[in-house]
């Protein structure tokens, strides 16, 4: 071990702190609870993104063209809220079970960026685009701004699902030899001090 100073990132320190908790290890090593949490996460992602996709397709003018947007959203909203709450809870539990590897996963980092982008898109939609909703609520094909927001929402969530799926693979894990780019993107230096 060389004498060069090693300063772990706050994220790495936080992940290490979580990793040191007995409940984190217990959840990860549980033969039944971990797979149940993982499966529930996938199923509720389907519920949430499925509901979202129907609303997005309506706003793109592809589905339920004769149904007002507000009617569709009010009917689907309870389902997507239920899906969202369980999806987020199980997602946090999955991170809690494997904190260090996940914090240093390039896929997880990419997924987090896509989630932030999806959240910004949703916020921007509610703030700007849906202000004059009454005007286009019943239109079979809503205005371009609405359609762009809907297309972005679908694209970003599809990306979130693919990136989330890829977290399972260990190609870019820090414990394997990695290119300088991957080592930088995954913050491997923090996990493997010189």
């Amino acid at each position: 071990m060389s004498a060069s100073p090693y300063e772990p990132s706050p994220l790495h320190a936080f992940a290490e702190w979580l990793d040191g908790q007995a409940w984190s290890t217990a959840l990860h090593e549980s033969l039944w609870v971990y797979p149940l949490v993982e499966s529930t996460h996938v199923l509720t992602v389907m519920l949430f993104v499925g509901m979202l996709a129907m609303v997005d397709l309506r706003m793109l003018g592809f589905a339920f063209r004769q149904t007002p947007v507000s009617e569709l959203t009010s009917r689907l909203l309870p389902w997507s809220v239920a899906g969202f709450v369980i999806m987020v809870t199980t997602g946090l539990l999955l991170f809690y079970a494997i904190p260090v590897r996940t914090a240093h996963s390039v896929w997880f980092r990419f997924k987090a960026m896509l989630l932030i982008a999806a959240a910004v898109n949703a916020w921007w939609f509610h703030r700007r685009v849906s202000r004059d909703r009454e005007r286009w609520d019943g239109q079979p094909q809503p205005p371009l701004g609405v359609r762009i927001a809907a297309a972005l929402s679908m694209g970003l969530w599809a990306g979130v699902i693919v990136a989330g799926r890829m977290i399972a693979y260990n190609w870019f894990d820090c414990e394997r030899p990695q290119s300088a780019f991957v080592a930088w993107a995954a913050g491997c230096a923090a996990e493997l001090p010189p």
Partner: protein
Amino acid sequence: MNVLQARIQTTAPIALAAMLALGGVQASAHHAFGAEFDPNRPIIVRGPVVKIEWTNPHAWFHVEHTNEDGSKTVWMMEAGTPNTLLRRGIHRNSVPIGTEVIIDGYQSKDLSNRANGRQMTLVNGETLFMGSSGTGAPRDGADPIERARSEDVEKLEEAKAADTAQDDG
């Protein structure tokens, strides 16, 4: 663009994403032997177990090996799934942290300090097969199921030879 075309164009990416998402919830580093480990790099590590990860799809035993120059290297030795090990009577506390072990295995192809563990030997001479059967690992005799199978094959061949001998007589 007609409605059907539009439907197909919009549903295809969703279907693709769903297929990717549901292609089986598979956890990290689940693989055939040849995808990850090199049969031409057999290794033996010896030292105390410093950490155990009792996780799917593979349990990992971290062993601190002392090198010839006196330096120490922690090797991550991959085992079978917790369930395979449990069925063989090995549980999480069978080999407590600090237990001195010798593990025969094969190093990973990327030459990192990870290896596929095959046979674990304890100081009292007891041996445990810690790997998985049927992954394509070299037939090194570590796997008792594989040994049993090859014994069957030998018996069959002996029986055949005996039959042939009788026919000749």
